[in-house]
């Protein structure tokens, strides 16, 4: 910049702490010849309230074009002095801050050296500030509605928390019923609390409570597309037909009783249900659904069994169609959960009475396939139960992590099985054991099962006949196993995998959704306006689901406030479309996916709403087409020249 610009320089003594080492008079002499013709003001304590008023008056009087402040760390007071510039009617980004307290006065013993260093850094700041561009914060209105994906405990809790705060929430659930996994469980570890008793009031509030007016529940629905960014998401949802009119159906389930067709009950992991049915008694909303692939009438065959018996005409709606909804929301909470790894190793596959944890939960439940009785496929009670923990977890050939919830579930199974079948011998086969927490510790100490250690899941084989079946460990020890429960690894659910690809989110090494920060930001993602609740973040229990549901709702509430626009920091990256060569290097590098490809102009574009100003793309652009506002190439070069002159 050739025309010198008048620059005001504020030199703070920090109540004498800075001036003890730095001679401000000497600095002024050293800088007097600087082309920016600096005018100086030494202040005792520039950040003091009265001092700031005085400084504002001085700036108004001097009318400088640029300001340099030499004081403490910018990490402490940069914002204070930006505001000072605003108050004096100067663009706040026309300022450069020089840290002469922490990084000069306090670390340099010799006052002569400290004074020389302060002068050098100020010289650089005077150079740099000439290159500053006026910036301004942009504000955009944000929507306060929230979309929640998944209606397990985490999604329900997030929805209710938001609804209670008066927010409009769309709760999207791909199943015909809400409640997620634990709604299938009868008793919950570690205290054997009644699962339905815990969850039904929550589901009741969601469906019929005061706040239900704020909740738009979409069952049988999946998100197919997400567009937009923080504050303004547009979500496309496809809803499968239920073939039941929810406004008319009274939930008597006569249709299910008379239906002649059967399909496997995937919710129980065993047994069958009718083509028109609920997964099991007591599911909410209290509405059956019709499986189009099983129902004779929907397959074009003659059948009116349910129609003939339904007491409310119009409840059965065979003309029901797939619907598409467009949801506008400011934030998205993903609560799409985790699931058991589906495959079974060959040694356990295709055998009677081998359960996974989830199907065993159903076997234990009163509304399960055997009415809560612990029965083998032949209808008799097992004499022995072998629960295989770590069945694929902590195992590099399956998943290398601990699935976190199996130990407590296994101890619960052992306890409940002993209560259901007198004299049953229960063994827990473990690789490692972990019962973290006070109440889980109690559960551990009250466990009476025989604990047998094994080395690797692949070492386990099933031997013997149905009447005397055993699990053999590495060809040696045998464990009686009339009935077997495999605690398979907990992996991201199909819904979680879909959310990851729909939103192009980062995944962690196990395929769960990576949080913004593993410790301090575990319910947020790197994508602003997308929050996480429950076990889409990694294996977790119900306590974790409720807690993180509340947490994610809290983040959405604090980020999206009615009437408060989103203020966008102007210190972002900008692409000069006239220089961009279209190599797309930056698009790959941006950790926040803030850069997109404009296919019409054939250039990269940065969304200022998503950019966080790290400057990685600025440094990587081979054409130098990207400017980092506030840290531009010209500013850094000017500063560099200043410190080296």
């Amino acid at each position: 910049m050739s025309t010198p610009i008048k620059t005001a320089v504020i030199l703070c003594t920090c109540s004498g702490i800075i001036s003890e080492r730095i001679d401000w008079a000497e600095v002024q002499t050293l800088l007097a010849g600087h082309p920016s013709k600096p005018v100086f003001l030494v202040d005792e304590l520039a950040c003091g309230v009265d001092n700031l008023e005085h400084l504002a008056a001085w700036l108004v009087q001097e009318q400088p074009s640029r300001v340099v402040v030499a004081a403490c760390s910018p990490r402490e007071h940069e914002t204070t002095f930006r505001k000072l510039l605003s108050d004096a009617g100067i663009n706040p980004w026309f300022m450069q801050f020089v840290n002469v307290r922490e990084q000069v006065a306090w670390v340099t013993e010799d006052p002569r050296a400290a004074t020389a260093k302060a002068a050098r850094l100020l010289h650089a700041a005077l150079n740099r500030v000439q290159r500053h561009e006026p910036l301004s914060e942009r504000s955009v209105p944000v929507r306060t509605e929230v979309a929640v994906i998944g209606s397990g405990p985490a999604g329900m809790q997030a929805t209710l928390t938001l609804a209670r705060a008066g927010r409009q929430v769309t709760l999207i659930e791909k199943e015909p019923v809400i409640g997620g996994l634990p709604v299938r469980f009868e008793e919950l570890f570690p205290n054997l609390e009644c699962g339905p008793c815990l969850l039904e009031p929550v589901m009741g509030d969601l469906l019929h409570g005061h706040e239900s007016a704020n909740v738009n529940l979409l069952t049988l629905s999946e998100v197919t597309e997400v567009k937009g960014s923080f504050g303004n998401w547009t979500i496309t949802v496809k809803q499968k037909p239920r073939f039941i009119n929810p406004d008319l159906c009274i939930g008597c389930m006569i249709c299910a009783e008379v239906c002649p067709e059967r399909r496997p009950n995937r919710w129980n992991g065993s047994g069958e249900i009718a083509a028109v049915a609920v997964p099991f008694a007591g599911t909410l909303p209290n509405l059956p659904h019709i499986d189009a692939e099983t129902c004779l009438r929907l397959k074009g065959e003659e059948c009116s069994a349910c129609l003939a018996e339904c007491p409310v005409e119009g409840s059965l709606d065979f003309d029901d169609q797939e619907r598409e909804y467009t949801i506008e929301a400011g934030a998205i909470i993903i609560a799409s959960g985790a699931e058991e790894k589906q495959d079974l190793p060959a040694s356990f596959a295709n055998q009677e009475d081998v359960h996974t944890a989830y199907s065993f939960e159903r076997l234990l439940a009163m509304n399960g396939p055997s009415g809560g009785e612990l029965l083998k496929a032949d209808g008799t009670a097992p004499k022995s139960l072998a629960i295989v923990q770590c069945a694929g977890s902590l195992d590099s050939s399956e998943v290398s992590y601990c699935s976190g919830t199996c130990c407590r579930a296994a101890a619960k199974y052992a306890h409940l099985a002993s209560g259901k079948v007198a004299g049953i011998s229960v063994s827990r086969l473990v690789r490692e054991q972990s019962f973290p927490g006070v109440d889980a510790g109690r559960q551990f100490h009250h466990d009476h099962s025989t604990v047998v250690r094994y080395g690797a899941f692949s070492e386990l084989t099933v031997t013997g006949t149905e009447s005397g079946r055993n699990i053999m460990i590495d060809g040696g020890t045998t464990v009686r196993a009339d009935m077997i429960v495999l605690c398979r690894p907990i992996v991201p659910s199909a819904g979680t995998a879909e959310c990851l690809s729909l939103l192009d989110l980062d995944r962690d090494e196990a395929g769960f959704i990576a949080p913004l920060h593993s410790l301090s930001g575990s319910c947020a993602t790197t994508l602003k306006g997308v929050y996480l609740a429950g076990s889409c973040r990694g294996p977790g229990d119900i306590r974790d689901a409720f807690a993180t549901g509340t947490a994610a709702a809290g983040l959405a509430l604090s980020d999206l406030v009615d009437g408060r626009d989103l203020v966008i920091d102007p210190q972002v990256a900008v692409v000069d479309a006239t220089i961009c060569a279209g190599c797309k290097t930056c698009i790959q590098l941006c950790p926040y996916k803030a850069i997109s490809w404009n296919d019409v102009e054939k250039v990269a574009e940065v969304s200022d709403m998503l950019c966080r100003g790290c400057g990685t793309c600025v440094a990587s652009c081979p054409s130098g087409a990207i400017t980092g506002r506030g840290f531009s190439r010209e500013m850094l070069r000017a500063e560099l020249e200043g410190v080296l002159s």
Partner: protein
Amino acid sequence: MSCQTLPTEQTAETSSANVTPGPLRIVAFLCNWCSYAGADKAGSNQLPVPSELSVIRVMCSGRIEPPLILEAFQKGADGVMVLACHPGDCHYKEGNIRAFCRAELLQNLVPQLGIDPKRFRFDYVSAAEAEKFSRITNEFVDKMRSIRL
């Protein structure tokens, strides 16, 4: 044949011959979130930091493009440091990984330009490592002083 055709000793001589002895000029690029905070903490703990060191603050070490480092050498810097958050700790997730890769590149490139690779140093300083900041900046400046002698 090695690409590093210029032995370091010879490089050192060449550079010292060209520079008029004056105060050492050392530039350190520090990322705002860890290294700059660590440098601030060195201040709060009153640990010595060489007066020859001039800090240039950037938001992330990923902001530093290699030409800027080369320019520092061209303009007469005796030594250049880039200090970043530890791997995994970058405020912007992976800017420090980019910085690390560029540092590798520079280590190999600068000897081709007649610059002793010892005059460039990339390191990690966390917000808590005030002592490390003080130690490595002093070590670096001492080394630059001995190279120039």
